[in-house]
């Protein structure tokens, strides 16, 4: 027995020792050095050309986001205008009324949503701009990638400065909580100066077009020049507008013959397109099929599948000249049959819906956002023409103003000489009015009108009846959440 006891003891000690020894490595570093499971660390990123490509791709991918294309964009850039009403049913998402009626308070979530969404764009561009220069790769490609990032950064700051006035100017990836996290607001002039700098640098590098089909949808030189023209127009730098638009007018863009077809899937990235946010519906990639641009504005009702927000107003419907085909191309009327053949219920919730974001119902796929494949037309060639016309008019070149304006009206009338007569006035004021009206009907429901009227200085005249007040409503309030988090470094806009 004693013998067995000893045996057991020895065995136990043996097991114990074995376990202990087996675990002793636990005190050396190997045991605790557990690599990240299935996640890449930022320290091994931004090393190769592939990383640069992926980083630039992320900039484009993020442009589809809810904040860039759906509710926050509608709230900030569309609903305040006289073109659009809230839509849907009266009680559905009634916060849009605060934007429609200018009773907004700084706590409203779509204000911070828009703000955050634009700064996310900016972070993705800053990531590329800070990190890609250090990567060893094809220098031409590198320069193009940087130019693409600069375009998107300028685009986002332009949307911010229109919406809020001066905003924190973040031009690098934030690195230090003590110095560059909590930035104060830059002035409006400073923000515009940076936008122009980025656009100049982008235009100098970007190609006029891409040969590889796998590059279709990337920003081009034409896009940078067009956006710059628009920025210059907001700054009333009419000579610059002329210069940039004249250049673009020599780059081979043209208007599609049929206005309605401009907004259909088959004409994405067409010869008229200057910049579109690229969207797709990929059956095996729901996360990448995330655009809700079309869905939130889509036809409500059993067949439409949309939410029916941001609908054309009666005011817009009445704004067209008699017989203008753009009215029918812009507005889906309750009870109509669309050119694509969809029958719109005569008893739907809303009398009108946005036809420019409309995707034929046959293209819907169950389980995916309705119309997720619709690209968002951000800049079109007709904008170049109308900016050219306006700049020419402001610079007293009525000949070119008449000519550029006529190109837009010519396409709109589609050969029907009975409608949309050529504008021939040489009176600068009359021409200005004509161009303003043309911009409204040409770009209706394209998120242009609201800030267009404000930069024209006609806010009180046009939006006054809706509650818009000069000295207050030129910009929206800075998000209260952002002011709270800044500990008072950010200041609120006057009147909020």
């Amino acid at each position, binding site marked *: 027995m004693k013998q067995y006891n000893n045996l057991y003891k020895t065995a136990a000690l043996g097991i114990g020792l074995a376990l202990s020894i087996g675990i002793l490595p636990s005190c050396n570093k190997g045991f605790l050095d*557990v690599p990240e499971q299935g996640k890449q*660390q930022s320290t091994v990123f931004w090393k190769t050309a592939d990383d640069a490509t992926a980083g630039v791709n992320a900039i484009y991918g993020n442009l589809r986001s809810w904040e860039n294309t759906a509710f926050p964009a509608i709230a900030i850039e569309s609903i305040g205008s006289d073109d659009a009403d809230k839509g849907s049913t009266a009680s559905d998402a009634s916060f849009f009324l605060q934007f429609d009626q200018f009773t907004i308070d700084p706590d409203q979530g779509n204000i*911070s949503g828009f703000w955050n969404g634009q700064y996310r764009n900016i972070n993705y561009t800053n990531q590329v701009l800070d990190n890609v220069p250090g990567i060893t790769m094809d220098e031409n490609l590198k320069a193009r990638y940087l130019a693409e990032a600069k375009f998107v950064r300028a685009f986002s700051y332009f949307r911010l400065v229109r919406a809020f006035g001066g905003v924190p100017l973040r031009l690098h990836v934030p690195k230090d909580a003590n110095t560059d996290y909590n930035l104060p607001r830059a002035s409006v002039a400073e923000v515009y100066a940076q936008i122009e700098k980025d656009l100049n640098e982008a235009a100098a590098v970007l190609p006029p077009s891409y040969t590889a089909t796998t590059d279709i949808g990337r920003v081009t030189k034409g896009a940078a020049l067009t956006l710059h023209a628009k920025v210059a127009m907001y700054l009333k730098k009419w000579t610059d507008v002329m210069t940039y638009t004249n250049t673009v007018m020599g780059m081979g863009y043209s208007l599609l013959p049929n206005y309605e077809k401009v907004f259909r899937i088959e004409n994405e990235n067409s010869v008229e397109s200057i910049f579109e946010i690229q969207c797709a519906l990929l059956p095996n990639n729901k996360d990448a099929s995330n655009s809700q641009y079309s869905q939130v504005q889509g036809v409500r009702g059993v067949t439409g599948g949309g939410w029916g927000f941001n609908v054309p107003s009666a005011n817009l419907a009445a704004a067209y000249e008699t017989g203008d085909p753009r009215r029918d191309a812009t507005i889906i009327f309750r009870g109509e049959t669309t050119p694509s053949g969809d029958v719109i219920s005569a008893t739907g919730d809303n009398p009108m819906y946005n036809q420019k974001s409309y995707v034929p119902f046959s293209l819907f796929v169950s389980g995916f956002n309705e119309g997720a494949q619709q690209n968002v037309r951000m800049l079109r060639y007709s904008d170049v023409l109308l900016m050219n016309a306006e700049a020419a008019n402001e610079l007293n070149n009525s000949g070119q103003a008449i000519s550029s304006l006529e190109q837009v009206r010519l396409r709109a009338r589609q050969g029907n000489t009975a409608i949309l007569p050529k504008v021939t006035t040489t009176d600068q004021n009359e021409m200005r009015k004509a161009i303003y009206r043309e911009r409204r009907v040409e770009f209706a429901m394209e998120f242009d009108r609201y800030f267009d009227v404000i930069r024209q200085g006609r806010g009180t005249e046009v939006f006054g009846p809706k509650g818009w007040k000069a000295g207050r409503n030129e910009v929206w309030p800075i998000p209260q959440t952002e002011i709270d988090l800044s500990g008072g470094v950010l200041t609120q806009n006057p009147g909020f």
Partner: protein
Amino acid sequence: MKRFFTKLSVLSTLCLFFTNAAFSQDITVKGTVTDGLDKTTVPSVSVTVKGTTKGVQTDVNGNYSINTSANSTLVFTYIGYVTQEVLINGQQTINVVLTPSSQQLEQVVVVGYGTQRKLDVTGAVASLKGSEISKQASTNPIGALQGKIAGVSITSTGTPGASPQIRIRGLGTIFGNQAPLYVVDGVWYNDINFLNPNDIENMSILKDASAQSIYGIRAANGVVLITTKKGKLGTPTTINYDAYAGFQKVTNKVKMANAQEYGIFTNELAGLNGGTPVFSNTDNLGVGTDWYDQTLRNAFVTNHNVSIAGGTDKSTYNISLGYLDQDGIIKTNNYKRYTARVSNDIQLSKSFKVGYNITGVSSKSKDVPTTIYHQIYSASPSIPVFNADGSYGDPTSQGLGDGANFNPQASLDFFNQQTKQYRVTGNVFAELKFAEHFTFKSSFGGEFGQLENRKYGPKYYATYAQKSDVSILDLKRVETRNWIIENTLTYENTFNKDHNITVLLGQSAQSNKAYTLNASAQNVPFTSDADLYLNLGDAATRTAADEGSLIKFASYFARANYSFKNKYLLNASIRTDGASQFFGSNETWGYFPSVGAGWVITNEDFMKNQTVFSSLKLRGSWGIIGNANVPINPSQQLVGQTGNLVAIFNNIPFTGKSVNTLIPPAIVWEKGIGTNIGFEAAFLTNRLTVEADFYNRKTSRAIFKIPVLGSLGTVDNQLLGNQADIQNRGVELSAAWTNTTEGGLTYSVGGNISYNANKVINVLSGEIPIFSGSTGITNGAFATRTIVGDPIGLFYGYKVAGIFQNATDVANSPTQASAAPGGFKYQDLNGDGKITSADRTVIGDPNPKYTYGVNTNFAYKNFDLALDFQGVAGVDIYNANLANRFGNENISKDLFDNRWHGEGTSNTYPSANIGASANAAPNSFYVSSGSYFRVRNAQLGYTLPSGILNKWKIKKVRIYANAQNAINIFGYKGFSPEVGPIPTDNAEKIKADRPNTALNAGLDANVYPLFATYNFGINLTF
């Protein structure tokens, strides 16, 4: 534990000696000792003759026999019972009923890596017997703790199979999993929902830092030590069968508006928003559909357990099988769980023991959509379940907006999801005693788990918003692979009779691995489950994604306990943990020391002659604990590679990757530093016990996520870091009284109350307050603010002065955005004539101040009765459901009845436009008291007389009826004043970590009804 066993074996040896040396002139006294409360016989009771050293022990059936003089006095003592003296006075049969004492210093409590006599413990440790747990007829052992122990609060989630939330002395940590560490027979777990409550022998809750610190890194939220039942050496086989059946019934439901009321409200809302009435005639809407009646039921639950336990002189065994079948209160919800457990200890020699515990669990749940509770809360009562033609009632047909655009019945009918979980877990151990004073123990434990979730969404059309043209099959597999090795060496000795010393040295290593695989395909046919394979779906639609985690810990620990003459106690311990999460930082290893001291005053000579105190002990302790519930290497920045970053060029997807988080600050260990001072006293021969604790715990450099500036451009506007120092101070008081009256009534009454005060003592972000609580429910506005000097996460917003009655009222009040009749009129706190963000202030405190419980047991003859009460006071709740409106959601009857609907109709409740931004802004209207009082448990039992049972060869039969949560009293107008975590369905449990819960505590977005449980059960012992 060793000390206790040593003592016990010495005692039994002595007993044997005295039995053999009995004197012949004495009489023989025989009898049986039984437990006053549960009427079982009590083995191993020491029966001594007063004033002598003569004594015997009761056998396994509680019988004793002793020879002694006819006029002497017998003393019956046993741990956990009130000592009883009986004068023999010539009687030859003396049956004794012992009264269980609630606490005695001789009682053995389980502490980290061992056991101690209650006497020797210098920290705050509470324990609960297995019988108290199984008695509650809870499906989860944690639920049984509610109201039982001072400083421990439990919040139920109500989802079958889900564990309740448990908080020990308030909130320990803020980030990540806030559950305590569970140590079951030496193996570490985050959750014990796999454990059958009937298998538990004892549960110890380590409440203070000194007791917890031996578990170092994982102790930040407290530690619950569980020992499972084992057989006893040398006892015949005992078979227990315990079963109950009953049902769960919804209680304290929020009364919702009926169809007509809903119609009126909806029309008012449309009118206030400038629209036309939705319903042309509300008079004919009638009562409409009650979606709660339609989808809820009295849910059946049944539970069966069989256990077989016993032991030879060399080995013990315990085998148990359990079966639980629990319906959810939603009609299609069901959870079934099978558990099997085997434990076996083999004494290979006098000094060498090996053993194992193995638990196998298999569960299957038929799930319901996570959104269903919110749907039945929001669904329009004006919609029929089915139309006359059999089609589903469709909200779109009545022009109702998106907020209520669903038919909950259709949501249930077309939801097909099941979750299966398999788990094998346990440990093997070897224990060797050598060189007289040393014990070496080695244990290897592990867990092998698999979760299988399958969801099939059919091709269907129910309503406008509930339809699909394709079918989708989603599969999910979660594998868990954990192991833990622990080696301990214990030295125990007594020097010069008076100096007791125990030294523990230990080492531990563990690894926790999880892997999740998700896959899906569209257009999978479905004629039977055999079709549900991804292979049968469209190839172009197949997706797969996975993720994993691996965490390792290495630890070393040591502890020394010293006591002098059982009067002066000293404990000290140190543990160091290395964690892979922190590998590469300056602080891969954390150090967690503790010290404790105690003074057993009643063992002093000067207390010998006093009769007031049966025992009195003072104790004090200090310790440091850590928190490992942080992401793997939180100081490292990761690359974002999500689907939304995929670029589309010419309709072709291209992978997008970037960095969309901030560089994390160098995160250092979050530590809890706690001191505890307490006393334990017993009076009147241990009939009355009182225990009090005062504690102060500082959570230093607490790790959690805080919202950061949107202009930083991060993906989630959050940053993880060491953010604040938080202090919890409190008092816990518990008292218990047990007695047996002359009439034979044995009863015990226990009460506990605890007070906790929470304060932020430092915010590392400096002057800038931490704002949080921004969610859809507040329209994006921050609802809580955390600043130095305040409790954490105070509700923050406007104070409501009243309701705007008319345009004049608006015009005469301070300027306020979107001010309109029927809207909230906010107080202009800074008096500048306009309502701005500067007028926000603290409007409530979500941190509970008082929790209390009263527990009673009564036994008279064959009847027993237990009544438990429990409550919370001094806490606020923010009812975030009221303004959480996107359109035409249904409303509570309370809101309908009291709403403003014209001048003079209300100066407290707003109009139907309550969801408008200006009204939904965080304000005092939404804050109310969350105090409640509850009859937690009531149980009446009857034990069949033993005479009948002997004929049937059954040792014991007890039947009982039990009611849990039957009565709940509270003023809060939401569903439940216990604002728990938002439960997710079984598939999502793995991701149940909800960040920032402390910053968002008390924001009630739950719409889960409370329910009461009624059971009838039987306990059989063969």
